[in-house]
């Protein structure tokens, strides 16, 4: 597949991490797309489709909570795993490495706020 030579190749529909799993890593998509899916009472809701270059699963690095969503390859995808230990070591030496994660998180809060507004307006 085109795109990065780094990471692991996941086939279409293959699970990268499952909701509820214990997480010790986050991910950066090197090529392809990844679905972020929430499961509740056996029903799936597609939260969004993440693109190459995006950071995913960062919540598990900061909280001791199980994964809040399932990550699944949409088509063939190449995904790089970022280890919690390496990341924490680096953040200790250089806190500015978290700038981009803060940006990602604030972007998601903004998206969620817009979604709430949209849902409330639909009611």
């Amino acid at each position, binding site marked *: 597949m085109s795109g*990065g030579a*780094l990471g*692991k190749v996941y086939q279409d529909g293959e699970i990268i991490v499952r909701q509820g799993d214990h997480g010790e890593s986050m991910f950066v998509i090197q090529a392809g797309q990844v679905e972020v899916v929430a499961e509740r009472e056996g029903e799936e809701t597609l939260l969004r489709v993440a693109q190459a270059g995006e950071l995913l699963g960062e919540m598990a690095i900061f909280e001791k909570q199980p994964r809040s969503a399932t990550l699944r390859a949409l088509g063939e995808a190449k995904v*790089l795993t970022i280890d919690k230990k390496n990341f924490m070591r*680096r953040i200790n030496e250089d806190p500015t490495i978290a700038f981009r994660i803060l940006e990602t998180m604030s972007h998601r809060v903004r998206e969620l706020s817009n979604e709430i507004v949209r849902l409330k307006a639909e009611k």
Partner: protein
Amino acid sequence: MWNPRPVGTDTKGNMSSTDWVETLDLGEIAEMPAAGSDALTLVDGSRVAVIGGGPAGSIFSYFLLEMATRVGLELNVDIIEPRDFERPAPIGCNMCGGIISESLVQNLATEGINLPGKVVQRGIDSYMLHMDVGSVRIATPLQEMRIGAVTRGPGPRDVKEMKWESFDHHLLKRSIEAGAKVVQGRVDHVDWTDGRPQVRTKGNLPETYDLVAVAMGVNSPGLKLFETLGLGYERPSSTKTLIREYYLGEEVINRTLGSSMHVFLLDIPRLEFAAIIPKGDYVSMCLLGEDIDNALVEEFVNTPEVQGCMPPEWKADARSCQCMPRIAVQGVKKPFADRVVFIGDCGVTRLYKDGIGAAYRTSKAAARTAVFEGISEEAFRQGYLPACRTIANDNLIGKVTFLATRVIQKTRFARRAVLRMTKKEQQKEGHRRRMSSVLWDMFSGSAPYKDIFLRTLHPAFLGGLSWSLLTSVIPASKKKKTEGAKK
């Protein structure tokens, strides 16, 4: 005026064939700025010169501009670089093994710098350790390509097809996108004027800057410009290495060396460490040791271990290129002064491993300091020195771990024990692979030496090693006895 014999010339002043010939002219050294002045900060419109556009220079420029933008600061950054990273042959290459460590790959990806397939010629998922007692493959537990094999230039002199982008070019491009300007040329004169550094690129008029980041590596005679400036700077001590590139073709590499980095622990006098790294169409052979010369290389390439991992049709003298760059082995004590900071190899780097990772760490720490804390000697002492110290202190532990590696290299039963323990671990799924993880991090440079050292003190590691040592010694002594009995 100081006008030394140019480096790379003989006593009669005749130039040698080295790429690095340059005439140094330091001029009169004007008054130095007062140390620790509060006024030493970057402001809108400040001018920054980055001397050297290798990894340290590009990463420094990228983060300096990125962080300045975050705080609404407009800076003018000039990267001065003589090489053209789009041209094959030595003119476009910064000579190195080209391994982008696991930790650097992850850190860059987290920072939003993803290395595309055009730059990473091969993803590396395993290490193949070759010793006279046997070979073992150490694979990443995640079955993931976690290490990148790149080239620093677009290819050697005889490159058949320019398929790949040079790693240095990729980083330089990122810093240009962030707003840096590249001045092609070699700095041949540095001075001070009105308390500010003045930099001259060969053939041009001198330019005055508010800050100079020196990222010249350790292979440039130009470092002399700073040694005589009265900053207290002395270049890092370094040792000679050897790199050879061989053309094998992608298909042959896939079939033979595959996606493993091949590391050799051989008991050859003067040879410290050797590796063969598969890239796209080429493989790089790197040798580290004492007074590396052709005889040592000959001995290495003719070992059954090297012959066994290269294709049968390979000829050791059919190389595409060879260089003998220096590698820094001892960092600088004070890599900064008012308005000047030394980053990457010409400041402090990691011992033998992950030099580019160290360049990323020091360059970013220097950029962060310049934007948030200032550009005075005191600001760099507070903000920059800790990052350098972390690396330098870790190197001290690194020296001990390399000493242990040397013992293994020289002792056959120790080599057998390491092989036995690693092989056993690699065969068992789901177990803690203690020896494998120690070797993995030693070879890949992904973890601090302190971490690796502490892991070797774990009772389970020591227990496993003692058992393997015992079982490696016993058969040998038994064998001796039986041989003795037969006689």
